[in-house]
């Protein structure tokens, strides 16, 4: 027992191991918030902050799913188009059910959205694992397919929610629970569930094992294909949850709904500390990453120093800086 005794001297890493690298996205977020407060006093106004956080919900919710996909070593480019497609299907099915079900068409439409979203994810996953094709290629293809479908469904214009449902559905985006907007509540719930699945279940353990080294996982009897496919299904489910929050915001789907969101989501996941090659996943880092993107955009809009047309450029620079910082801190 001599060797084991000496091991106990070090602090035990039970579940919650704090490392500086894991804290980086939260520190970066804090720094940006401080800068925002210094630049413009309106930034810290409760109204503004709640607005920013609420807008973050979509990227954060989809990001939780993307964290799973990326942790298994995959990548999903189709999420922006998938969101638009699911929003479109949801609006069409609610409008169709409204005469018969009244406001109950809303939960029914939500169920349809969750099923369709999960099936879209399943489609991606099955093509990738059974067809043995790179996730990048497959989701590039489905990205085009989903985008074309929503353009076709809206006939190039817009697809609006039935007026009879508008009032009842509105609070899901604009309402709040004890002062916390519903989208924020939903984000927290999704992230909590995501963190539980990833860190506390066997499935989560297999996700990191597959992303870390698929061969080791296969030799240990893990069904690598199933784990990967399931990650895409989780991704699709999260997209559907985001769609449910999105519909009441504008009440319509258009061919540009969710356009380029995939880039924002992947950026949020990566600056949140999840490795793009898989293996290490940080759900809360992803949420912080989504917040960083949205807060920076907000600070830029509030300040007059930089044109808001350059928001995307700053966000693009951030992902590169985050990666360089990671390279230099891990190369010690």
């Amino acid at each position, binding site marked *: 027992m001599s060797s084991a005794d000496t091991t106990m001297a070090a602090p035990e890493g039970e579940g919650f191991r704090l490392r500086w690298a894991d804290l980086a996205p939260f520190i970066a977020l804090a720094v940006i918030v401080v800068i925002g407060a210094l630049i413009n006093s309106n930034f810290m106004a409760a109204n503004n902050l709640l607005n920013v956080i609420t807008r973050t919900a979509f990227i954060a919710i989809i990001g939780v799913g993307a964290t799973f996909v990326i942790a298994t070593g995959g990548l999903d480019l189709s999420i922006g188009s998938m969101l638009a497609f699911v929003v479109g299907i949801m609006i069409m099915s609610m409008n169709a059910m409204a005469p018969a079900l009244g406001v109950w068409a809303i939960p029914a439409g939500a169920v349809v959205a969750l099923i369709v979203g999960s099936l879209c994810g399943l489609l991606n996953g099955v093509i990738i694992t059974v067809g043995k094709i790179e996730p990048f290629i497959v989701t590039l293809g489905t990205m085009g397919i989903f985008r074309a479908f929503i353009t076709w469904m809206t006939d190039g214009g817009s697809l609006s929610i039935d007026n009879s449902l508008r009032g009842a559905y509105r609070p899901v985006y604009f309402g709040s629970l004890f002062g916390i907007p519903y989208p924020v509540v939903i984000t927290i719930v999704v992230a909590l569930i995501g963190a539980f699945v990833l860190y506390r279940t*066997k499935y989560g353990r297999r996700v990191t094992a597959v992303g870390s*080294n698929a061969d080791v996982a296969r*030799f*240990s009897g893990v069904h690598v294909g199933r784990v990967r496919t399931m990650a895409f299904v989780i991704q699709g489910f999260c997209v559907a949850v985001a769609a449910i929050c999105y519909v009441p915001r504008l009440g319509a789907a258009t061919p540009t709904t969710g356009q380029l969101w995939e880039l924002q989501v992947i950026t949020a996941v990566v600056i949140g500390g999840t490795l793009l090659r898989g293996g290490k996943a940080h759900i809360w880092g992803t949420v912080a990453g989504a917040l960083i993107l949205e807060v920076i955009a907000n600070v830029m809009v509030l300040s007059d120093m930089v044109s808001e047309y350059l928001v995307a450029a700053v966000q693009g620079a951030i992902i590169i800086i985050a990666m360089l910082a990671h390279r230099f801190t891990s190369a010690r």
Partner: protein
Amino acid sequence: MMLARTDMAGATLTPEPPVLRAEGLSKAYGSITVLSDVSLDIRRGEIHAIIGENGAGKSTLMKLLSGHAAPTGGGMAMGGEPVAFADAVRAEEAGIILVHQEILLAADLTVAQNLFLGRELTRGLAVDDRAMNRRTAEVLARVGSTARPTTRVGDLPLAQRQLVQIARALLDDRKVVILDEPTAMLANDEVDALLGIARSLRDQGVSILYISHRLDEVEALADRVTVLRDGRMIGTWDAAELDQRQMAELMVGRELSDLYPAKRPPATAEPVLTVTDLSVDHGRVEGSFEVRPGEVLGIGGMIGAGRTELIEGLLGLRPSQAGSVTLNGRTIPRLDVGAMMAAGLVYLTEDRKGKGLLLNEGLGPNLVLQALNLINPGIRLNRRKETGALKTAVDEYDIRVRSLSVEAGQLSGGNQQKLLLAKVMQADPAVVIIDEPTRGIDIGNKSQIYHFIDDLVRSGKACIVFSSELPELVGLSDRVLVMRSGRFVAELTGEDITEQNVVYAAASSGRGGEGRTQR
């Protein structure tokens, strides 16, 4: 002594200086000496075989001679002039080239493009494909290849790729060509063709250093034979003076120490695992075998004999099918890792870092990965049980760690191996298959692992050990099956388990192997 063949070539009767001479070559990495004081002469137009067990220092010697590594002692001379190569390119310029065992060609380029890779012929700014194709065709003809210069290398069969690789080495005039296990991947008729090419090169005045495990090839091909053992030179003989059996004895020549636990009484229980007519990689590897509780079944054979393929096929990790597999009294319907594991068979891979452990993960997650379902009946992870299992394993398998929260990649090789052994034992298997139990680990950890294996077999489990280290195979096994070219060629038991017998069966022709076991 002068070789008869040199006389017939009629060059001269006064001994000309050797093409290449090594004088007291040594190589050490840090404090570990892998080759010490090796001296040999390579004559013009001879085939000089270098034989020795795995780890005897053959590859190191080849690297030194071909400039891939610098010696830490001794020197070389070519044609009587001292030489030292800064790198492999300098050695190639001097006329010495090493043809690697693995195929190192770009699959998507044509044969000619591969041959001239990095030294393309140009006319002005453009590459001169026509000239390169013409030169390539000449060289291919010289090695007897039927490939066309414009064929994509990826479309060629393995044997042709091997020839392309040799052709590449011959593009410029060479004095010494070193062939490192050129036949390891080839089928029998392809081997014969390759031996013919080696002879024709010799007759063209090229000296060939031929590294091989296959003693029958060496006997048929070589003019002289140099034997290495444990990094030392045992001697150089005229090939005519040695038969395969003598070569095997020269290669081994070592006694067993008490590194190994005492052998167990013969196992009499009914077999716990019976495999009949297993066929892997579409028949490239085939065999039937069984193992009983309380015995260590050793499976021996040279690298490339098909040992790893056999087991990966049994586990369904390669294309395979079997007549029948019975494990623990149950018939296994489908070859699949998960199903095998559930029925009580686990596999400890030889590729510790690539297929065994998640190097960036903690010790606990690694330990329980294979037995996740056993340790966690529900969907939730039971962290307390996981930590408990880790503490027990660290204790039981004497895994030396600074802290329980380090990552697996931070452990030494020996401790990684113990962690891997602990990992596969988590599932409480009936049969444990261990591929290369002690590869790359030091002698102290080796001995511990041998005793762990002894313990688990004495507790009624069955163990199958694959090893290319002969002393290990002989020291551990109660019964040995020897493989060669994808088939079982001999079964040794009791007193017959000796290094000489294993080497003889593994390296000589199939018929010779049969003969030995029937003795």
